């Protein structure tokens, strides 16, 4: 049966890269469509009228939006190389942490790196608070990883893919803004995990070029909040 899989994404977005990582892990062929987010295509608006955002997966003409929803759809549709465990409690745990990463981590990381404009004395305190918050969030992930090679155990799973923001984009944000967050001395397990994660073929092939991403971030958000 001829199957058509389309992915609407943006080269720098960890969210659309998640979808590509999952498809690559399962060996699913797809056609990628790069969206210019300042000039969204009629197709994107048609396939995601509610949010008008990437990523969107279109499978045989049927669109699915929201990256974590898409990951679950991919896992349920193509059963090889499962990305969620079988046990309901382990599955719930993976969903809990994926939600945690999306709802808590990214905005906190962003605030620590590029924050808001504050007057000088306040800036130092606010920045320290933001860095501390990220540190607490990363500690929770460090604790969750325990002695596992990946969050998914012996192989990369849904939570590893959802944590791509931590595994790759965080390091890029750090370099672009000059703010240090994921240090080896505080988070040895998470650092080891990040190194392993970016070496997995299906992941490695789907990471945006580091220099290009740094240049884009600096251009868009400025030089960052590094203490002078």
């Amino acid at each position, binding site marked *: 049966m001829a199957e058509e899989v389309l992915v609407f994404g943006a080269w720098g977005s960890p969210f659309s890269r998640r979808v590509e990582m999952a498809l690559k892990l399962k060996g699913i062929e797809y056609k990628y469509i790069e969206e210019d987010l300042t000039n969204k295509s009629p197709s994107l608006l048609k396939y995601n009228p509610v949010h008008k955002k990437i990523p969107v997966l279109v499978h045989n003409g049927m669109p699915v939006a*929201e990256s974590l929803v898409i990951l679950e759809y991919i896992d349920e549709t193509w059963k090889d190389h499962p990305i969620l465990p079988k046990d309901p409690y382990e599955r719930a745990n993976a969903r*809990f942490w994926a939600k945690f990463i999306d709802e808590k981590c990214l905005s906190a990381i962003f605030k620590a790196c590029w924050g808001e404009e504050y007057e000088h004395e306040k800036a130092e305190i606010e920045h320290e608070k933001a860095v501390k918050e990220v540190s607490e969030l990363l500690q929770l992930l460090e604790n969750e990883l325990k002695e596992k090679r990946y969050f998914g155990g012996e192989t990369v799973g849904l939570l590893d893919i959802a944590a791509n923001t931590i595994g790759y984009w965080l390091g890029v944000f750090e370099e672009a803004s000059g703010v240090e967050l994921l240090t080896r001395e505080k988070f040895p397990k998470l650092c080891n995990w990040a190194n392993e994660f970016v070496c997995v073929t299906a992941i490695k092939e789907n990471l945006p070029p580091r220099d290009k991403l740094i240049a884009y971030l600096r251009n868009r958000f400025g030089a960052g909040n590094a203490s002078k």
Partner: protein
Amino acid sequence: MAEESVKLLGYWGSPFALRVKWALKLKGIQYHYVEEDLPNKSPMLLQYNPVYKKIPVLVHDDKPLAESLVILEYIDEEWKQNPLLPIDPYERAKARFWAKFADDKCVPPVMAAFSKKGEEQERAAKEARENLKTLESGLEGKRFFGGETIGFVDIAAGWIGCWARMTGEIIGINLIDAETMPLLDAWFQDFLEVPFIKECMPPQDKLLEHNKEFHKILTAAST
């Protein structure tokens, strides 16, 4: 199945705990309910949900789970009778999408309309109405999101009708417009009439009083 093996930590006035009660009721799961005093959270709650320190928390065989939508999926996978999610992956994706939409886009502006004043409140009310109208499109003309019977999205979002109406009464701004959202309005009403849904609802007069008090506190704080 021993009642002690399933425990729910909740709060009588919380719609998020209510979702979990509904799911357990639908599947006929016996459980031990623990009412939390939210200004004075128990050590047990803090131990079971160290990340968010919130209710609801479901504890099954001493294994805790937090975040109500995550709990709903767990309940559905652990106990297979009266399924919440459909079988087809595409239909499941749609259900997850709309449950997330309700939580991310409908609940916050309803809460904001409840707690803010003046222009901020008007903007929030407008956003709530627009997003509720969008939620209506997810019904696709069906009686319930689950089709002829209650499903995942109904349990996830059905409470919003009652709370939005109560909010509207308290703040004097209508959030659910029967004229512009007839299907959504009908859905909210049909949902609340389903016997097991109705049975689990907190007493309306007590809830109204509680929310009125809560509203006073919130709006005093935002002055």
